[in-house]
């Protein structure tokens, strides 16, 4: 059974169809990207899947569970982590605090336990801190540990967002333009991180404009245009698909 199964998803805004009857299936362990021109409905699709928008029609299943009408926090707690295109981050908090924010109730302790700081919570807290240190090390931000996130460069910013999304140890990672607006060296690092994670068993589904990234690392690419899925397949088949190239780059 697929990890993520989107069936007939449709979302309209004021009469404009942003996502039009889209079917997507992601299997465990895949590294899939979603591409398409601006305004083709990629982010809207992500928002519908993660519960930030309510779809007008269609269903989203995650691990056989219907999550179509679930609240965003419930979906997050099921092990589905996402990032935002606008590079959302707690700018006033430090790097390590940002990472710790990534784990909210993923370990299922109650408010009371959290207030009382029971032994269980202290152990979880210790684990979270260790994990934060590990991830800082992974993306190479350890030297900026106590810096406010607002002081980071844009590339470091993106790495921090990426690492924060990994904090709850999600099964499925939805990334909205992880490599956008960062310099080529950073792009290469991001690519490596994504491939490493994927090899380690994480399923990644991401939106990206940078074709190089997409073509290099993906096994499968899904193309949206004007809200519809117009193609799907390995990089080569997309590169040779006349319709895709036209939609994306014009004639």
């Amino acid at each position, binding site marked *: 059974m697929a990890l993520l199964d989107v069936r007939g998803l449709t979302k309209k805004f004021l009469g404009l169809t942003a996502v039009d009857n889209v079917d997507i299936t992601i299997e465990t362990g895949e590294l899939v990207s979603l591409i398409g021109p601006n305004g083709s409905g990629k982010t809207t699709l992500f928002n519908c899947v993660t519960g930030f928008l309510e779809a007008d029609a269609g269903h989203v299943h995650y691990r056989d569970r219907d999550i179509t009408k679930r609240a965003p926090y419930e979906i997050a707690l099921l092990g589905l982590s996402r990032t935002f295109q606008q590079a959302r981050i707690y700018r006033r908090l430090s790097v390590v605090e940002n990472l710790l924010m990534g784990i909210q109730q993923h370990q299922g302790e109650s408010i009371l336990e959290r207030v009382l700081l029971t032994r269980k919570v202290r152990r979880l807290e210790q684990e979270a801190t260790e994990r934060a240190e590990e991830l800082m090390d992974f993306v190479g931000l350890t030297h900026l540990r106590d810096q406010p996130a607002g002081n980071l460069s844009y590339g470091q910013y993106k790495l921090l967002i990426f690492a924060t999304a990994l904090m709850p140890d999600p099964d499925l990672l939805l990334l909205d333009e992880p490599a956008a607006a960062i310099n080529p060296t950073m792009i290469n690092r991001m690519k490596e991180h994504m491939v490493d994670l994927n090899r380690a068993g994480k399923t990644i589904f991401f939106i990206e404009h940078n074709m190089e990234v997409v073509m290099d690392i993906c096994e499968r690419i899904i193309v949206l245009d004007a809200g519809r899925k117009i193609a799907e397949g390995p990089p080569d088949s997309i590169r040779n698909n006349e319709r895709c190239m036209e939609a*994306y780059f014009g004639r």
Partner: protein
Amino acid sequence: MADEARILEINDLFSGYGEIEVLKGVSLEIENGEIASIIGANGAGKSTLLKTVFGLVKASHGSVVFDGQDIANKRPTDILRLGLSYVPQGRCNFPAMSVNDNLEMGAYIRTDKEVKADIESMFERFPILEARKEVMAGNMSGGEQQILEMAMALLLHPKLIMIDEPSLGLAPQLVELVFKAIQRINADGTTTVMVEQNAKKALSVSDHGIVLVLGQIGFEGTGEEIANNEEVRRHYLGG
């Protein structure tokens, strides 16, 4: 007096948002009467460049000379009066006002009596708007709204018009319509600078192509040169 041939000269321009610097020393010249296209990856600073020129984003360093006057960090109102109009990315009209009222708002800074006649001439120029005169702008299609926004900008008879992503989110036929309109505007004597994701299409109608890479000019040439440049093709035109 400035060089007649150059309408816009940007010299070593730096700008950004708060602590994030987006433009890192952009120098650029736009010739009078040309169509120039700025292309580049998301976040390369294309929109920021236009916003900085128009005074919506503060320039931290560098100069912007328009028609012989330094306009860096001037207010949009003053820049408009000098004859530089700007059509931002996304929908930039008044959705709950009629097309006619929107056009009047486009001419907001004008105080002369010719506004009414000019609006009529816009209707002649873009018949698609005349049919929609009393329709709320928000109820029109994306392409129609884009044309309305360009018409609003043109009411000030600008010497230079800057358009950010005219084809954003438009269906192919509408993209065609909008690019035709841009070519008409240029043919009527308005220098045009546009930022486009649809790079191939944009370059095909441009005299001048500029590729922005991470806040700096990466490549520059005629539209054709840019479209045929191996490296540009590979990175931004998809081979």
